[in-house]
């Protein structure tokens, strides 16, 4: 990564999900849309419309301000990315990240919210204590507590992704249950190494 370059916040989420996938997406540009990412895109398209000062339906709080698709940046952590939605109450901003489907078993979405919060804190000079994840399939908004522990894990992931983007070194492709539904499966072929070593060619 050259001087003056920033880490895409989305890369943190991918790295936490699977370092090899992160390498494919951010070092190779081998990003293939599958139904999940396409649905994700159209969902994002809906979210990324700028509205200012619209009270939100869900919570009906008069004093909530919303801004969509704002660039977030942190000089300290060299992060850059777009937020789906920022909300402010009593002059305090917090991030809301939209996801298709339901909450997964992995904390990659939480890391993304935390990274957005780190940017927000730097940009506004105000502490952010809670962010939100909105899962489209369950129509549920879940609070993400920005604990010291989560912040620590986020900062560690930032360091790992920085190293990945600087060196371009390929993390191994390791097969796990997460591979199901991964849009890069056909490029990655995570079982190939084992299958190739077991394979006996016809004499």
């Amino acid at each position: 990564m050259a001087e003056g370059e920033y880490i895409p916040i989305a890369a943190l989420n991918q790295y936490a999900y699977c370092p090899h996938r992160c390498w494919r997406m951010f070092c190779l540009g081998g990003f293939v849309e599958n139904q999940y990412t396409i649905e994700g895109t159209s969902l994002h398209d809906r979210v990324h419309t700028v509205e200012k000062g619209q009270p939100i339906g869900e919570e009906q709080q008069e004093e909530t301000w919303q801004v969509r698709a704002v660039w977030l940046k942190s000089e300290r952590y060299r992060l850059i990315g777009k937020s789906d939605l920022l909300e402010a109450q009593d002059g305090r901003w917090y991030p809301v990240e939209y996801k298709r489907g339901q909450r997964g078993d992995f904390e990659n979405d939480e890391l993304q919210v935390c990274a957005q919060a780190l940017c927000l804190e730097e940009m506004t000079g105000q502490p952010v204590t809670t962010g939100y994840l909105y899962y489209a399939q369950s129509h549920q908004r879940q609070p993400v507590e920005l604990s010291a522990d989560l912040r620590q894990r986020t900062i560690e992931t930032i360091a790992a992704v920085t190293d990945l983007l600087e060196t371009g070194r390929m993390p191994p492709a390791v097969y796990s249950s997460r591979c199901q539904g991964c849009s890069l499966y056909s490029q990655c072929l995570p079982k190939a190494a084992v299958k190739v070593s077991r394979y006996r060619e016809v004499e």
Partner: protein
Amino acid sequence: MGTLYITQDDSFIGKTDERLTVRANKQTLLDVPLIKVDGVVVLGRATVSPAVVMELLERRIALSFLTSTGRYLGRLEPELTKNIFVRSAQWKATLAVSAEQHAPSEAALHLVRGFVRGKLKNYRNSLLRAQREFPELQLQSAITQLEQAIDPIDRTNTIDSLRGLEGSGSAAYFGCFNQLIRVKAFQFAGRNRRPPTDPVNALLSLGYALLRHDVQSAVNLVGFDPYLGYLHTQRYGRPSLALDLMEEFRPLVVDAIVLSAINRRSLSPEAFVAEPLSGAVSLTSEGLRTFLRLYEQKKQSQFKHPVLQTQCTYQESFEIQARLMSKYLMGETEKYPPLVLK
């Protein structure tokens, strides 16, 4: 859908919304959604609208141009993928171990052995199959010669000697290819090309040109530089790596289609025309359409991939083999397994 073949001379390839349209003589010949197209091959003369050119590049769909008889001319390519890692591994493997000995790198040697072994084993297996099916055929000596060419491959340490084994194996196979043709009207006396002067050679040449378009697309997709190969020496403008990877597929895809088209009488001698003077033989436009349909059907037919143990089409197997090759070069796997089918 897959690959679109445009055979009508002077047709116009245009774009309407998200669809590709082919028109000729004020008639619409084709109207397909772009999302279903993964390759376009123009045989002969056609006008391609600027909007189509841009759309194909945007969507990373390759556009190949062949003469109306199927000789490969060239292609319009989207920018290669950013996969510099695969390409640097590919380049590294071309470097000789030592300049004075001209010893190839272990990786280059391994791959070339794989390409040659894959091709010759598939040749042998198709002869074995034919021998089982038709015991009266005299294929045993060719099978033995193929075995003798296959046997020393993994002990052979120069690319040139491997080319020699490939040459003698291919000679044995084509030496009895005529026995595999069971329709009197078609005779095969050996490979000839540029131009092919008999129907069987015309079909083989056309089939190999189509296969090349597909294999080269797969090689590009995975991120390779298609012009840098190991078995085929670098010659300007020749996609050596695509030709390398094609070897194992020649008998599996093209030879199989040619033999079944003739033996099942999908194509009769009337489907061919010969040029005066040169003797160049090519298909009539109807025969060409038939052959292209058979080729496309073959590509979409499924089999169990012997390494991955999953069902895949031949079309998908081009990409799978290219990915297995990249995994070997990147050090993710210990060997490159060529596609060998029983």
